[in-house]
């Protein structure tokens, strides 16, 4: 037994040694030595695979796109359109735009960007087969003329007042000819940073591009994107100082971030959540029942339950007050009024024992929580809503085929003007965001009429007609604008969350303005 105990001591010594080494490694290896090098470490909310040109792959990919690529125009910190590859642009009329490119533009590999390059890019995005994120804006592309190397004249077959906004979309960067093919990798662009290394599924290392037209204004030497798909892992990484910035702070983590003295929580009212109706089935084929729902659901409850109180309740159409075509009455269509809801249900003849199926998804907790909050409010007016909460892919498939009575949905429009409404009012299957089977031709006609106007006041009058129909017919029911937050170390300067819907599509443009103190 004595020998055994000698062995045991050896083992224990070994173990202690190993633990000691681990502790020593932990203590003596310095972290965060990057500050002096001006490398921004960005904890990103999703893995970004290969960049491909055209299709949208979600908000995290937008942010990476905006570093590698650059379009004709972009958004500034207030969400205003400013020149990018185009040094100037103007609307010749409501369906014709001219762009003048900057001189000497180059892609990261040194190849030149001329009017013909831009023309090829835009024509590629206008091809339906590509499935481009901005296809709806380019589907009306009639012609692109290139009178000289630096001038483009873009003609549309229909007026589109938001055309320029689409040109600032993160998926509308101008790309080289090699990227204009299905599945082709698209890592060479005209943006402020170029790819150095891609650690598949882990991180992306970008360095400042000396080909960028505005390189003198870029203070960072590089950006390192580290993928943190899990929301609390992302917050932990920021709290531990592993990264300098994170996107999409989980609502449950707002207080944790605010409590840390050296962090900034930058939250704005962002994308919105809403309810869809199956118009092809009773009872929601009846506008009175849809109106009843609009009065039965308390948006404040959705904000409290789904977003931990971090959001803005909606009683109408969400829109940024900064937009030139905004009118305050657009946001005042309905209001929480259960008595009125009950009266409307009685009027529609469905006051007693209405049973419906409420579709949500278990993949996102805020989707599930929103449905739970709605379920309680519906119960209060005598509607028995049975929850159907499959995974995301099943949810999208049921939504597209009308396998629901009521469904929750989320919207992150890529433009801030009222034209965004079109995607939400047009019914599925024509638009994947709309209520199943809704015929929106009357609303769309007014929106299109508004888009054709160059004068904001005249345009606004048309939009208000569209919004009035939305108020009466309730093709969809916006419920809350969720708080969309970035969080960053107080050593990061110049970075800012762009308010409104542009939080998703515009904030990526702010990285090139950042620096580390």
């Amino acid at each position, binding site marked *: 037994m004595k020998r055994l105990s000698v062995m045991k001591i050896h083992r224990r010594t070994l173990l202690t040694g190993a633990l000691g080494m681990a502790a020593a490694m932990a203590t003596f290896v310095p972290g965060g030595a990057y500050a002096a090098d001006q490398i921004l470490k960005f904890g990103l909310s999703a893995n970004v695979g290969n960049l491909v040109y055209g299709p949208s792959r979600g908000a995290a990919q937008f942010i990476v796109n905006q570093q590698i690529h650059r379009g004709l125009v972009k958004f500034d910190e207030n969400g205003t359109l400013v020149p990018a590859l185009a040094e100037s642009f103007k609307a010749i009329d409501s369906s014709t735009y001219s762009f003048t490119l900057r001189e000497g533009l180059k892609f990261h590999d040194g190849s030149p960007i001329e009017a013909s390059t831009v023309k090829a890019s835009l024509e590629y995005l206008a091809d339906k087969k590509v499935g481009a994120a901005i296809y709806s804006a380019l589907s009306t592309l009639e012609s692109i003329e290139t009178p000289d190397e630096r001038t483009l004249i873009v003609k549309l077959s229909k007026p589109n007042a938001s055309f320029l906004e689409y040109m600032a979309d993160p998926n509308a960067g101008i790309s080289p000819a090699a990227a204009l093919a299905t599945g082709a990798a698209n890592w060479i662009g005209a943006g402020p940073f170029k790819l150095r290394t891609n650690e598949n599924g882990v991180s992306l290392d970008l360095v400042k591009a000396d080909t960028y037209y505005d390189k003198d204004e870029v203070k960072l030497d590089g950006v390192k994107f580290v993928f943190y798909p899990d929301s609390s*892992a*992302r917050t932990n990484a920021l709290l531990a100082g592993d990264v300098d910035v994170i996107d999409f702070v989980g609502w449950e983590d707002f207080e944790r971030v605010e409590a840390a003295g050296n962090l900034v929580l930058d939250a704005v009212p962002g994308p919105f959540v809403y309810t869809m109706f199956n118009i092809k089935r009773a009872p929601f084929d009846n506008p009175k029942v849809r109106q009843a729902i609009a009065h039965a659901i308390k948006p404040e409850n959705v904000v409290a339950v789904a977003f931990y109180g971090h959001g803005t309740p909606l009683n109408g159409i969400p829109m940024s007050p900064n937009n030139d075509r905004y009118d305050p009455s657009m946001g005042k269509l309905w209001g929480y009024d259960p008595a009125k809801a009950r009266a409307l249900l009685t009027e529609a003849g469905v006051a007693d024992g209405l049973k419906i199926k409420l579709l949500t998804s278990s993949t996102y907790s805020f989707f599930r929580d929103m449905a739970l909050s709605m379920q309680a409010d519906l119960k209060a007016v005598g509607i028995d809503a049975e929850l159907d909460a499959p995974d995301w892919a099943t949810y999208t498939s049921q939504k597209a085929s009308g396998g629901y009575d009521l469904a929750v949905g989320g919207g992150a429009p890529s433009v801030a003007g009222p034209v965004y409404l079109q995607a939400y009012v047009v019914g599925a299957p024509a638009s994947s965001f709309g209520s199943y089977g809704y015929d929106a031709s009357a609303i769309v006609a007014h929106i299109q009429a508004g888009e054709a106007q160059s004068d904001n006041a005249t345009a606004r009058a048309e939009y208000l007609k569209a919004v009035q129909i939305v108020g009466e017919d309730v093709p969809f029911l916006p419920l809350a604008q969720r708080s969309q937050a970035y969080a960053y170390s107080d050593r990061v300067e110049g970075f800012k969350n762009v308010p409104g819907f542009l939080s998703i599509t515009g904030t990526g443009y702010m990285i090139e303005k950042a620096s580390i103190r």
Partner: protein
Amino acid sequence: MGLAAYCGKRILVGLAMILSVQVIIFLAIQVVPGDPVEAMMSEAAHVGADVIEVMRQQFGLDQPMPVRLWRHMVGLLSLDFGTSFQYTQPASDIIASRLAVSIELVLLASFFGIAGGVLIGSASVQNRLGEHVFSFFGPIILSIPGYVMGSILILAVPLSLGWLPAGGMAPFSDPIAHMRALILPIVTLALPIAATIAKVTRFEILEVRSQDWVRTSRAYGFPTRVTFRRDILRNALTPVLTISALELGGLIGATVLVEKVFNLPGLGSLLVQAVNMRDYPLIQGAVFVISTFYITINIVADIMYGFLDPRVSKR
């Protein structure tokens, strides 16, 4: 039956199992509701049904199911699972990079878990203190789920003490950062393995120690150390090997919660995400790798019994 024939039979059965798993998963994932293009486009801006149809054709989803199954099985011969729908990269490349992380994690966690378990198990038989430590901590460790243990460690080490990163992975090219990133996940995964193995080891040693060949060995006057190593431990380790193989094989796809807590890009989280998005090539590929790993480990364990206990291969 000779050892070679025994091994050959085990390998053939294993191959048949791997192929069956592929067919079953292929059919199962396509039968459940959910469409990859719709799931992917749900994140995109306004996309109509016409665009979705065009993309379905691009992914080959307009082909009848038998045609797709045949293409998949043919591709499998060259380990070509197709192109991931969401990542637009070959599924095999994505899986390879994720597999490296999973294998490293699983092998290191298993090594520390099994070695630690055998040491603790042996020690708990040999002295009082070991026994007390074992009987106090063993059940506690076994009863704490991995994601809770991981969260506690993150709170205690990176967030409170400021040591080690709170999660994430560093490339092999930076070995120190790489190892630092792995310490906490490995501890999280290894602790329950160690507790299980220690329990089995302790039980088996107590069992074997009372056998008559041990008494005979002692009676011959062999040193205790020799008796322990040759007569007790070797015999006690056969069941430990079974449990270890099961732990190791099961771990490769089951580290998903720990991957999530520590933000590690492993195979488990990849598979969960692929299923959510109905990324068929990625699902088939990940399941192929996980099932092959599991089945192989079990074949190796079966063959090792043949060596440790020649009676097994004669049966």
